[in-house]
């Protein structure tokens, strides 16, 4: 047997500090909220203490953003704003390794994903939007579209830096200023981004980053002087925010949960479909809102496909997120692990057939072995509820119509995957999918030029592409 020796990335590269402060009005300051301790989910050790915002700190941050908006940022020509945004993009590349290691430490995702996906895609979002800053008149929103003002942004823990980039880059390009709250369990890379922003000499107050829990987010989105709210996270919180904002003139975009169908027809390129299924659900431990968590496979190839899938999933290496050969890292928090365990138990109790990879798991930390449920019916909780973990539910279908009906039978509508070698069927299916993003013969591809977003309970508004600019312009 050929065992791969451990190949860990050095954690020194993360430049981890014992304490992090929030970033307001161009300076790092102590928040007056209760400090939080952020942990490494792979070892459960405390990484750092992070100061958090109180309600008055939220007010200070919004005021700083307002001042920067009125005095500097909204008046600056787009070509000048672009220079700052390009500078941020280059600095993210420059400090890519540091950010990647820190992201893996704080979030638990494997280093190969933070290194090859999160950080490069974050940089590319800044590059892409920097290009728009002086061309907004040609974006299709009138000759001289205006920014909205102060954007209050709340982001999740699954792609901490990447989500910050998705939010901050278009806001700045369009001339808005920002107050952003990173997730409670993953604040560190956003604060290194703040350091980058400070070093890029962005005018004070244009970007403010205030860590904290849900109450800070609630105070931010509820603040009277915020003009635009952007939230990525759970559907439950999204509903609360929408309720909170009803009757105000704040503009809102929500990017919420999903229960995407990955649909495999009998003429699909099977080996690549298996890769796509694996990438669809086990990428980032399944902590992906657009994860392909429901596999719909045509009955005539179901047994063959499931056999290939089991063999492939058995090769996934679960363990130390900093090891360059790790495919599946740690679940982000004990709370999330408990939720995954609870939902998988319900799958067994409701009669689905559970298969779990026999891969070894570390003794410490929050880990969950890749799991595939077959014999799943639409009525089961594992087919309806978002698990947000490395758990796949397999259902079968016989006709394209049945595939459409089953795929759309969910209150969510974020993404879908279609696997077939027949081009006409891809188009036929894509027209019928009630999902914001439809991939064909691939899955989980992210590009700043492509708009991303969902509908129904997956939210509304788009991020990325020309369409994504609309969320940050007064149109």
């Amino acid at each position, binding site marked *: 047997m*050929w065992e*791969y*020796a451990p190949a860990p990335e050095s954690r020194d590269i993360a430049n981890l500090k014992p304490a992090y402060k929030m970033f307001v009005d161009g300076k790092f300051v102590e928040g007056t909220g209760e400090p939080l301790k952020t942990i490494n989910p792979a070892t459960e050790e405390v990484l750092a203490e992070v100061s958090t915002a109180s309600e008055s700190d939220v007010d200070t941050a919004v005021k700083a953003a307002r001042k920067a908006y009125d005095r500097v940022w909204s008046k600056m020509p787009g070509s000048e704003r672009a220079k700052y945004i390009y500078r941020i993009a280059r600095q993210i590349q420059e400090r890519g390794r540091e950010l990647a290691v820190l992201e893996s430490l704080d979030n638990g995702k494997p280093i190969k994903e933070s290194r090859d996906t999160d950080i490069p895609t974050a940089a590319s979002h800044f590059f892409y939007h920097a290009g728009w800053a002086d061309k907004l008149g040609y974006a299709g929103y009138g000759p001289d579209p205006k920014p909205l003002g102060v954007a209050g942004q709340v982001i999740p823990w699954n792609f901490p830096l990447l989500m910050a980039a998705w939010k901050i880059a278009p806001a700045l390009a369009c001339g808005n200023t920002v107050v952003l709250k990173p997730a409670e369990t993953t604040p560190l890379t956003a604060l290194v981004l703040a350091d980058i922003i400070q070093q890029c000499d962005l005018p004070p107050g244009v970007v403010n980053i205030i860590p904290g829990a849900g109450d800070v987010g609630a105070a931010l989105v509820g603040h009277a002087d915020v003009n635009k709210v952007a939230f990525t996270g759970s559907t439950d919180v999204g509903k609360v925010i929408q309720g909170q904002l009803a009757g105000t003139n704040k503009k809102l975009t929500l990017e919420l949960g999903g229960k995407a169908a990955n649909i495999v027809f009998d003429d699909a390129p099977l*080996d*690549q479909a298996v890769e796509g299924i694996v990438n669809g659900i086990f990428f980032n431990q399944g902590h992906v809102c657009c994860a392909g968590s429901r596999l719909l496979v045509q009955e005539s190839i179901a047994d063959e496909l499931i056999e290939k899938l089991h063999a492939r999933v058995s090769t996934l290496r679960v363990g130390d997120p900093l090891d*360059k050969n790790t495919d599946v890292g740690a679940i982000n928090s004990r709370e999330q692990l408990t939720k995954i365990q609870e939902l998988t138990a319900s799958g067994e109790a409701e009669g689905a057939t559970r298969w779990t990879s026999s891969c070894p798991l570390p003794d410490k930390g929050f880990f969950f072995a890749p799991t595939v449920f077959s014999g799943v019916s639409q009525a089961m909780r594992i087919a309806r509820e978002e698990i947000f973990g490395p758990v796949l539910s397999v259902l079968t279908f016989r006709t394209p119509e049945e595939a459409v009906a089953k795929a759309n039978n969910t209150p969510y509508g974020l993404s879908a995957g279609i696997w077939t070698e027949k081009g006409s069927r891809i188009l036929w299916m894509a027209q019928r999918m009630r999902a914001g993003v439809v991939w064909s013969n691939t899955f989980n591809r992210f590009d700043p030029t492509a708009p991303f977003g969902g509908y129904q309970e997956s939210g509304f508004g788009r991020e990325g592409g020309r369409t994504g600019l609309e969320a940050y312009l007064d149109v």
Partner: protein
Amino acid sequence: MAAPTTLPSALADAVRDESSLRRFLHGLPGVDQVGVEQRAAGLGTRSIKKASKLHAIDLAISMVDLTTLEGADTHGKVRSLAAKAKRPDPERPDVPQVAAVCVYPDMVKTAADDLVGTGINVASVATAFPSGRSTMDIKLADTRFAVEQGASEVDMVIDRGAFLSGRYGQVFEEIVKIKEACGDAHLKVILETGELVTYDNVRRASWLALLAGGDFIKTSTGKVQPAATLPVTHVMLQAVRDWKQQTGELRGVKPAGGIRTTKDAIKYLVAVHEVAGPEWLDPHLFRFGASTLLNDLLMQRRTQLDGHYSGPDYVTVD
């Protein structure tokens, strides 16, 4: 058409006649180009260090088909290649021997005489290598000559013209006949994937060669660009994996041409390990067709053991 081995009924049906064979090959699942290239690139990022690297280097050395296929080959060159095959690093007797020496038919006797009793195989290219453009009689005579001279492995080329024009039955028959002419010698079937171009073609040609009784499927002659690539090798590894799934038989894969560095070789071994499975990590089931690769493996082996790089002057150039 004659099935060379006892095949399971589904596969026996596939080789019943030309139209069945065509239906079978065209009924294989397609290969998505973007997907297979993405997977190959992804697996290529595996980081193989320390003991696992040393193990991989020794394994790769034992899988090398040390090759010289030049018009300018001499008996002297073949003899020095044979000496290299036996003791790749003369100062380090613990370095494993290579799997085989691969030469043109007229050089087989020279190599075979030098390698008697070593366990190192002599492989010969045959069947109007590299183009395959000749009559069946000449291809058979070429094969028989190589085997008579002492080749224990024959690397044949398929008729790409016939394959690309859809005459699968003709290609099948040729492989079956060459396999017969090989007798006890192992048959490696060179698909020349650089001329087949699409991954769908590579998959069909792989299955065709396996159905016809090829012991190995080999990517390239080394005379056509591109020669071996990682994604092509992925597709061929999937074929032998699926073949085992259906028949229980183990068949081998040999990428050849363009693999020059240890880093590349390790990427191939990772693909063997994770696409086909650990049981293919064996010189009986996986080979590298290479000439310059061996010296890089030897230099990296020294680097691993000595802790420093010593350079190309410390390995023999043959």
